[in-house]
C-alpha cells in the first residue's frame, strides 16, 4: 500500500471509477450539446438561453461541470506524479509538484463556482 494524500479520493479504485464515470457524463453532455445544435441549426441567443432556462439542462450542466473538475483533477494529479519528480526536477520537485497541484485545484474550484454563477446567477 502506497500512501498518497493528494489524489482525489485516497483510493486508487475510487479514483479509477470516478474518472471513468465522469468520462461517460462528459461524453453524454457533448452529445447533448451537439444534438442541440443539430435540432436548432439557426442557433441564436434566445434559443441558447431557452435551452439553459430549462432546469433539467441546468442540473445536467452542473453535474457535467463537477464531473469535469473531478476528471481533470485525477488526470492532472496523475501527470504531476509522473513528470514532476526528483528524476526530472531534483530537490525542487516536491515544491514544484505541490505548486502545480495547488494551481490545478484552484483553477478547478474557480471554474466550478464560476459555472454555478453562470447557470443560476442570471
Amino acid at each position, binding site marked *: *500500500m*502506497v*500512501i*498518497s494524500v493528494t489524489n482525489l479520493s485516497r483510493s*486508487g479504485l475510487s479514483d*479509477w*471509477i470516478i474518472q471513468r464515470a465522469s468520462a461517460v457524463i462528459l461524453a453524454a453532455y457533448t452529445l447533448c450539446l451537439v444534438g442541440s445544435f443539430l435540432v436548432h441549426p439557426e442557433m441564436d441567443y434566445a434559443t441558447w438561453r431557452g435551452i439553459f432556462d430549462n432546469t433539467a439542462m441546468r442540473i445536467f450542466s452542473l453535474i457535467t461541470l463537477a464531473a469535469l473538475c473531478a476528471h481533470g483533477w485525477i488526470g492532472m494529479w496523475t501527470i504531476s506524479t*509522473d513528470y514532476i519528480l526528483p528524476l526530472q526536477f531534483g530537490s525542487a520537485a516536491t515544491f514544484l509538484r505541490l505548486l502545480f497541484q495547488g494551481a490545478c485545484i484552484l483553477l478547478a474550484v474557480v471554474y466550478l463556482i464560476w459555472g454555478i454563477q453562470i447557470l443560476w446567477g442570471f
Partner: protein
Amino acid sequence: MLVSIYRYNPETDSKPVMQNLQVEVPAGRDLMVLDVLALAKEQDPSIAYRRSCREGVCGSDGMNINGVNGLACITPLSAAVGGGKKLVLRPLPGLPVIRDLVVDMAVFYKQFEKVKPYLINDEPPPAIERLQSPEERAKLDGLYECILCACCSTNCPSFWWNPDKFIGPAGLLQAYRFLADSRDTATTARLSDLDDPFSVFRCRGIMNCVAVCPKGLNPTRAIGHIRSMLISQGT
C-alpha cells in the same frame, strides 16, 4: 556484423559511451544475440553482462536489443536486426547501471517482494496436500511461467517514473497468480494492499509489457483481472 554496445562503469566513467565492434558472424547460421555478444567479448574481455542458462529459463540476460527488450539467448540475430546491418545492445532501461549491460534490479525485486509472492493459507494443512481441481489449476496457466527477467517492467513508462511505487507488470502478474490460486486464503488482504493510486492503477494499459515478454505472457490481462477483483470487493 557491426555490434554497438553500451559501455559504462559508474566508478570511473563520467558518462556512458557506445562501443562499436566488428564481429565476424559465421555464414549460414542464425546465431542468438548472446552468441554474438560472446564473440564481441572475445575481442574485448572487459564487456560486462549477465548470462546463465542460455536457453530462456533463468532470465539473466534481459537487455535492450535494437530498441526492444528481450532475452539475448533466445533472440535470433536475424529477428533483432531485421534487414539492418547493426546490432545495438543497451542495458534494460529505467534501472541504475552497475556496469555496461548489468543493471541493479533491487527496486524490481522490492516490488516483487511487496506482493507477497508465496501461498498464504491459514487453514490447518491436510494430511497429504492441498488439492486443486484441473479447472482451478488451469487458472494459473499464463501466470506461473514468469521468470522475472524484468523485460516487461523496464519497458513500462509508469515503472520508469515511479519504480518505487508502481508494482509493475512482472510483480502484478505474480500478484494475480496468488489471487487466482484456489489454495490461497489471503485474497481480501492482498486486494486491500493494492488499493492505492500507484500499486495497480498506474497501469495505463498501453501493453508495452505484453509486446516484449519473452515467455509470451500477458501482464495487462492479469492487471485487468486484479482491477475486476478490486471492483467486486470494493463496490
